[in-house]
């Protein structure tokens, strides 16, 4: 029997999800599957599209691989749009050929609506939907200063954020009187507007654009119906989406009055052999502009094609939780209170920019919907009440009151029924998770693989972790946080033991709280903890054997056993005299010399025994150690700032030098990098640092937990317009909290991602002092700043410490025979080819 052919039009999120379901189902054997995609790229995660601007590539966002398609015998034709459907002949036509089908699936998604405004076809007008769109925006932003987004909905605000991240002055123009008119009410919209304007995005509501013409001070001018205008260099339209139903319309399938391919509960169109899923489908007069309902349709259709008579799509929850420009927004169920008799409970703190509204049933028993602005920590609990019809407590208002005013604690994972939906993207219930655990999954990673929970939009991650932790705990499974075989404790726990018991040596700690003699995992960890707590010299006899070689010899070991030397050059500012000394020393010892990526100079190729002599010379010239070897502050990069630069608004060099001098020497779980830029042009790349500071007209904006390196992460905006004192105090607290609570070798980025409650929690601890430890953190930092000593200075002055720097203790004159050299580009480098 020859196989039937199933054709899928559209390789987007829903089309791909459908194939994942279908390929592993029994019916897959009966079909030859062919997929046509208009975009050149394999299906990718459109929900996280904006991450393309923060460094993600198509490969990062891709949902499958070409190999997966091949392995499942699916023919993938990308960059080949379907132009027409011939329902009589049962064929589809592409620019290349005609292809016959037995069953046809339309997963064509939607397209951005561009309002019919004169001039909307200008080459500097864009939409925000595909990778190609983003490439075009990025290219155009290169020589632009300002950008306008038309449309203040969910996507519009995301696009505005993207423009901001591209360094543009961003504006949002909205026709309605408030932002996010679909999800929010008047008060919620007002609070959101306040927050977003605080972040420097200009919001213009009740503006209807009538024409786009050439501008005078910028490339374009937008004329509004009220006679006002706005000039900008580029425009992004985000005024809503329209279902991509052209093929269906032209082939005579039933479509809705305002667009959308009409489907029944089985996701089948008016032609029994043609089906539609995702954003192109119109079900019960509704279009679903979110990914989760599309996934549900995909699962339904796969079941239908497998002959499941009960399979039906019965609508979907449209609740959303987002972070827009760092502002939490949540909308649950009947957010506008349209149910008859619905009552409202509101909480509005204009000062803090927090707004919450609960819509409850007329008898006050059930939660019908909710709106949140400013703080989404209430979302998970409210959503569970609404979705599962859990009876509201007596004093329902406690669910949205801050804890300090008698708010109820979050609904524990325990209180949820087994049917509670935990991950709506992949339709995973609490029962599914318990099932996976009972089948042998014993950690979060395994459960994600098994159930797919939290692998969609990621919005359910915190809830999933709660459920998994509580279920594992119930089953008596303990997750090992031990750092190694010698200590049954996590780094954080060791920190407490050391601090609380005043322990000052590794031996005391291991004999009281561990076993054996230690190893290269626990020794440096404890070494770092001891250094943070007591700040003694790292070469004090007790501490020497704890350090990695780089710390022991206070230099970075290179592949041939020699070392590099990196003196501190705070903020990258250096006098000609000091620069000359660096040159002289390098010349004398024939050291390979290179400018580092951290705005300082690295001298390579010193032998162990040369290190103290070289440092003696550098110290005499006023240099200090740069801690290039330590898990400690590296550099504070700076731009030239207001003293020279025509755009600078603050003295970024001065602040960088101050910060570098303040935090130098602080021992941390991993290295710490900082940068200070003098204006939003961000020449110092502060948003890629653990601590990033960007000058504003009114002070400093602080960014935290950025990372370059292996897995880059943009820093999060933490606080705005801080004075010098506020800035220092905030950094003191963030750093000290990190030092105390992070795991070993955990950069701030990973620490933050693992911190329960994330950025919001960190803000509460640091900015609102929710744990009441603010003063203690500052005091601890003051203590460390006050006891700073240059380790190299102390080492060269102490003959006992200098003894450590002998290559061979019995043959001071002996040169290491392995260190062979050759010359390249006029400098010496190791000839050793191994490694």
């Amino acid at each position: 029997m020859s196989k039937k052919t199933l054709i899928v039009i559209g390789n987007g999120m829903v089309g791909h999800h459908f194939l994942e379901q279908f390929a592993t189902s029994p019916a897959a054997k009966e079909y030859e599957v062919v997929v046509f995609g208009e975009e050149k790229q394999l299906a990718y995660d459109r929900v996280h599209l904006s991450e393309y601007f923060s460094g993600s590539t198509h490969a990062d966002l891709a949902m499958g691989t070409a190999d997966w398609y091949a392995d499942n015998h699916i023919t993938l034709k990308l960059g080949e749009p379907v132009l027409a459907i011939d329902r009589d002949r049962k064929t589809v036509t592409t620019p290349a050929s005609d292809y016959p089908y037995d069953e046809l699936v339309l997963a064509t998604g939607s397209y951005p609506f561009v309002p019919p405004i004169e001039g909307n076809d200008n080459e500097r007008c864009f939409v925000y939907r595909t990778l190609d769109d983003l490439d075009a925006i990025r290219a155009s932003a290169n020589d632009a200063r300002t950008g306008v987004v038309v449309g203040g909905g969910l996507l519009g605000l995301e696009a505005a954020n993207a423009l901001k991240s591209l360094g543009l002055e961003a504006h949002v123009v909205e026709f309605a009187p408030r932002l996010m008119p679909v999800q929010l009410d008047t008060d919620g919209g007002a609070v959101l507007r306040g927050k977003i304007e605080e972040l420097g995005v200009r919001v213009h509501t009740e503006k209807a654009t009538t024409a786009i013409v050439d501008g005078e001070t910028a490339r374009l001018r937008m004329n509004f119906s009220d006679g006002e205008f706005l000039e900008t260099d580029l425009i992004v339209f985000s005024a809503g989406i329209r279902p991509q139903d052209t093929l269906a319309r032209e082939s005579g399938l039933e479509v809705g009055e305002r667009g959308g391919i009409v489907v029944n509960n089985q996701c089948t169109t008016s032609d029994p052999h043609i089906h539609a899923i995702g954003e192109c489908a119109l079900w019960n007069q509704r279009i679903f502009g979110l990914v989760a309902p599309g996934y549900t349709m995909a699962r339904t259709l796969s079941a239908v094609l497998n002959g499941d008579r009960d399979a039906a799509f019965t609508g979907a929850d449209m609740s959303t939780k987002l972070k827009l420009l760092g502002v939490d927004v949540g909308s649950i169920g009947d957010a506008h209170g349209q149910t008859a008799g619905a009552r409202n409970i509101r909480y509005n703190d204009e000062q803090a920019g927090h707004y919450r509204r609960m819509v409850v049933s007329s008898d006050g028993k059930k939660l019908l919907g909710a709106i949140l602005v400013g703080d989404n920590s209430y979302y998970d609990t409210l959503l569970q009440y609404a979705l599962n019809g859990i009876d509201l407590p007596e004093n329902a208002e406690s669910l949205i009151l801050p804890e300090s005013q008698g708010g109820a604690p979050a609904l524990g994972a325990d209180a949820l029924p087994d049917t509670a939906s935990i991950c709506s993207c992949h339709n995973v219930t609490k029962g599914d998770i318990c099932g996976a655990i009972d089948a042998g999954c014993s950690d979060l990673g395994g459960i994600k693989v098994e159930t797919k929970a939290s692998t969609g939009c990621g919005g359910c991650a915190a809830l999933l972790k709660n459920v998994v932790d509580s279920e594992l705990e119930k089953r008596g499974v303990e997750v090992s946080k031990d750092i190694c075989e010698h200590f049954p404790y996590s780094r954080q726990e060791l920190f407490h033991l050391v601090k609380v018991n005043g322990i000052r040596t590794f031996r005391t700690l291991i004999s009281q709280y561990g076993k054996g003699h230690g190893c290269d995992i626990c020794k440096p960890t404890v070494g770092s903890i001891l250094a943070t707590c007591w700040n003694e010299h790292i070469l004090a006899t007790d501490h020497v054997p704890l350090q990695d070689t780089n710390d022991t010899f206070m230099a970075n070991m290179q592949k041939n056993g020699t070392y590099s030397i990196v003196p501190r050059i705070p903020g990258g500012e250096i006098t000609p005299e000091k620069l000359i000394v660096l040159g002289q020393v390098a010349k004398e010892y024939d050291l390979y010399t290179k400018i580092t990526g951290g705005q300082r100079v690295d001298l390579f190729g010193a032998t162990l025994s040369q290190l103290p002599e070289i440092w003696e010379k550098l110290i005499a010239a006023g240099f200090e150690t740069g801690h290039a070897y330590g898990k400690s502050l590296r550099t504070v990069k700076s731009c030239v700032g207001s003293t020279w630069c025509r755009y600078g608004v603050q003295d970024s060099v001065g602040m960088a030098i101050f910060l570098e001098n303040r935090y130098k020497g602080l021992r941390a779980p991993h290295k710490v990098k900082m940068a200070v830029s003098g204006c939003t042009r961000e020449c110092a790349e502060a948003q890629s640092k653990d601590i990033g500071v960007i000058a504003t007209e009114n002070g400093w904006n602080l960014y935290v937990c950025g990372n370059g390196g292996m897995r880059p992460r943009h820093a999060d905006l933490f606080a705005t317009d801080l004075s010098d004192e506020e800035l220092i105090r905030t950094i003191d607290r963030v750093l000290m909290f990190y030092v105390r609570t992070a795991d070993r070798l955990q950069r701030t980025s990973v620490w933050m991602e693992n911190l329960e409650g994330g950025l919001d929690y960190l803000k509460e601890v640091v900015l609102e002092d929710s744990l009441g430890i603010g003063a203690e953190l500052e005091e601890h930092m003051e203590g460390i700043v006050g006891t700073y000593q240059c380790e190299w200075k102390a080492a060269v002055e102490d003959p006992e410490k200098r003894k450590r720097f002998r290559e061979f203790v019995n043959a001071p004159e002996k040169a290491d025979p392995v260190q062979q050299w050759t010359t390249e580009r006029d400098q010496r480098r190791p000839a050793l080819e191994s490694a």
Partner: protein
Amino acid sequence: MKARTRWDAVCTVEDLVPESGIAVWTENGPVAVFYLPHRLPALFAISHTDPFSGANVLARGITGDLKGEPIVASPLYKQHFSLRTGVCLEDDTVSVKTYPVLLDGNRIRLEVQATQQQPQAA
């Protein structure tokens, strides 16, 4: 001719660093001597040359024990070597030479293989 061995004094107790290593030069090349005062025996000597990188660095690694076995971790690529047998814990086809070592009064002596040119001392 059968090679003869000798116990050479390579350094004194004062040169040692507790819980860590130092390097000495011997006729057999560079040797790392470790002093772990909280174990018995407390002295170990292995080749100073890291077989994975060819660099003379093993004395500068972190010492400790794994499952009871005394070890040093190479400071370059972090493999662990048994201080007793010289065998690499991550790859038992690789090992470094070990040397018998003893404390003689205040002096540390290593048993090294005499090279032929050397006068054969008793």
